[in-house]
């Protein structure tokens, strides 16, 4: 993975010093809250319901053991012993004191981490495929380009006061694990007919109160031009994006209001004017960054492990975990391990300091020192030898991190909701907890198969409900929590937006509704159809009927 040189380290250090000064000015009263707020936001510091919240960047979801241990340390020393992994591969702390934040940032800087641009109307932390560098289906490691974008976008002088926040995701696989069609810019590395690799550039996706699937504005962009092309998109957005209405300020509105063609013409014209300038990195610098992402020295192993096969047959619980939570690795004899942060009845994405230390230990011993965070609020050990899987499973089980439910009905995305968030209308987490308890039977979960439930506590859609196979949106009605169901969304390569079905339900009824929908699916599915496939085949009406008929 990427390591800072003295330049990267100096910039992060200078940022911490700057923020320390800004905090002092706020505490002394020199800065008003109005003046301070954008400054703290650009360092990831929010004010939530109970306390401040600090969002720490995990660039493109990649962590070392050392970094994970430092995250555990921050949770212990400055917070209440836990952290929360988000849908943007970041981690949030829910209880830091303002006066401690400069020290927290100093501690994080020691391990090449920061909270830069994790909020504010700027280019946010770049996200990527959590299996990058390990996936059998990738064209190349997308993180090289994520790091290129990270550096270019950090303290970009022109794009720090955009109309609204700006999120970029990069993948190099046909199987979209990074939700690239739902980002302000999604980049997909692929090969053209001539065998060269380049980017498909997708612009204008997003969730929130006006969800859109992104549009491809360029099928193939040679890789060396990435930054100049991004700069052209951002400049058009900075100048043309709406600033009169907070809810119409994202680039998706600009792209869709005037039409994709017009937007594309503006970008191409701007790009033609700047592509020869010094925005794009020279090959030497790209090679320097690429070297950090060269594959680890995988051992020359047989594709199958006898030790693993023996345990698979003798231990049914292990076999289930293998089936559900591990993924094919590109190197023979290795596997990708998903760590579930969704125990039955648990809080999606939450992890204690003790669990963080355990994951760090496992990564150090078994996974080339690497950990990934996923946009579905889980973790990954990307490079585990098949021979070691049993030991890893046992260790994860001891920490309640081995729930075999990846992609299944209890692997739920939920925003923090009204338990933490000052913008929320309703709680989200308790709904996720009740659903996962209702479907606690692992055999039943596996039988149901892939089913993505996503829950948001308000229309801002941090829980991605628009793209849940089953989405749940919390709405406040005169001081009471109600939940609206959407069906048929997807955030993957088959991206689609869900359709609202019927009236809002009470929290208890919402959990029952999910059960009815799942029952209906199981009665009507054909062959190996997933829930979403059945829904797409037979349409919304029968599901609606099943949902409201009995009621």
């Amino acid at each position, binding site marked *: 993975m990427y390591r800072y040189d003295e330049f990267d380290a100096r910039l992060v250090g200078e940022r911490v010093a700057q923020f320390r000064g800004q905090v002092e000015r706020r505490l002394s009263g020199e800065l008003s809250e109005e003046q301070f707020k954008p400054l703290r936001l650009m360092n990831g510091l929010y004010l939530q319901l109970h306390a401040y919240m600090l969002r720490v960047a995990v660039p493109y979801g990649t962590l070392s053991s050392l970094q994970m241990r430092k995250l555990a340390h921050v949770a212990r020393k400055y917070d209440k012993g836990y952290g929360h992994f988000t849908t943007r591969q970041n981690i949030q702390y829910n209880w830091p004191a303002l006066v401690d934040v400069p020290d927290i940032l100093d501690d994080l800087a020691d391990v090449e981490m920061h909270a830069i641009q994790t909020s504010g109307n700027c280019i946010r932390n770049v996200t990527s495929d959590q299996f990058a560098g390990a996936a059998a289906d990738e064209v190349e490691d997308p993180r090289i380009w994520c790091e290129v974008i990270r550096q*270019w976008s950090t303290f970009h002088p022109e794009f720090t*006061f955009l109309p609204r926040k700006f999120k970029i995701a990069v993948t190099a696989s046909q199987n979209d694990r990074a939700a690239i069609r739902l980002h302000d810019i999604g980049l997909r590395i692929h090969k053209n007919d001539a065998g060269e690799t380049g980017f498909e550039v997708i612009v204008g996706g997003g969730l929130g109160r006006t969800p859109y699937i992104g549009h491809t504005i360029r099928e193939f962009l040679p890789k060396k031009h990435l930054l100049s092309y991004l700069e052209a998109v951002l400049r058009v957005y900075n100048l043309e994006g709406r600033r009169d209405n907070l809810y119409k300020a994202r680039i998706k509105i600009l792209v869709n209001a005037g039409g994709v063609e017009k937007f594309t013409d503006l970008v191409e014209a701007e790009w033609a004017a700047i592509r020869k300038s010094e925005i794009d990195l020279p090959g030497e610098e790209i090679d320097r960054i690429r070297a950090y992402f060269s594959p680890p020295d995988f051992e020359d192993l047989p594709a199958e492990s006898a030790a693993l096969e023996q345990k698979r047959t003798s231990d049914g619980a292990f076999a289930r975990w293998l089936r559900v939570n591990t993924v094919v690795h590109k190197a023979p004899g290795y596997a990708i391990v998903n760590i579930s942060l969704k125990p039955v009845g648990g809080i999606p994405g939450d992890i204690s300091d003790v669990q963080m230390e355990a994951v760090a230990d496992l990564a150090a011993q078994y996974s080339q020192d690497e950990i990934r965070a996923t946009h579905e609020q889980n973790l990954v050990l990307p490079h585990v030898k098949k021979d070691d899987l049993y030991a890893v499973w046992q260790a994860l089980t001891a920490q309640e991190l081995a729930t075999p439910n990846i992609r299944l009905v209890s692997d739920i995305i939920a925003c923090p909701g009204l338990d933490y968030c000052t913008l929320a209308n309703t709680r989200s987490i308790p709904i996720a907890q009740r659903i996962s308890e209702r479907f606690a039977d692992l055999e039943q979960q596996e039988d149901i198969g892939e089913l993505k439930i996503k829950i948001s506590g308000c229309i801002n859609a941090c829980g991605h409900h628009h793209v849940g196979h089953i989405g749940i949106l919390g709405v406040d009605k005169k001081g009471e929590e109600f939940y609206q169901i959407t069906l048929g969304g997807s955030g993957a390569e088959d991206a689609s937006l869900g359709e609202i079905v019927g009236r809002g339900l009470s929290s208890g009824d919402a959990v029952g509704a999910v059960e009815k929908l799942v029952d209906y699916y199981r009665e009507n599915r054909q062959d190996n159809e997933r829930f979403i496939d059945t829904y797409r085949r037979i349409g919304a009406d029968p599901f609606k009927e099943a949902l409201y008929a009995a009621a």
Partner: protein
Amino acid sequence: MPLLKLFGSNLVPALEEPLQEVSLEDWCDNPQAHADATALVIENDIGVEHIAEDLSSFGIIILKFPTFKDGRAYSQARLLRERFGYTGEIRARGDVLRDQTLFMARCGFDAFEFAGDDTAAASAALGEFSLAYQSAADRMEPVWRQRLDRAVAA
């Protein structure tokens, strides 16, 4: 509202000279009527390309920040400097705060109608970062070029 000007890497208080200002719209309507104008004021929702031909008529161009959160003038300034080769003064007007002056300077601003009192602090803020990752309209060497230079020297 002190006027600060960029000298080297410092912001220095400058004397406020009386300006004869003209808006871009008025200038475009009738340049002859504004022949004595010394400063051109461009609103931040107008494309600077409209004045590309006449830039040499002005020693001062004023770009606006209605609030510090409205960052359109950053792009306008870069376009004036980098695309249209404007070498006169670009002055920031409006909500011009200490914590944004470095970004402004990097985009080509060299004069600031500073909205605070502590001009020494504003100048110090320019030095809070000694490096930049990306090239812009100023003379800061992007980090990638410093890395290349170092690799060549080694």
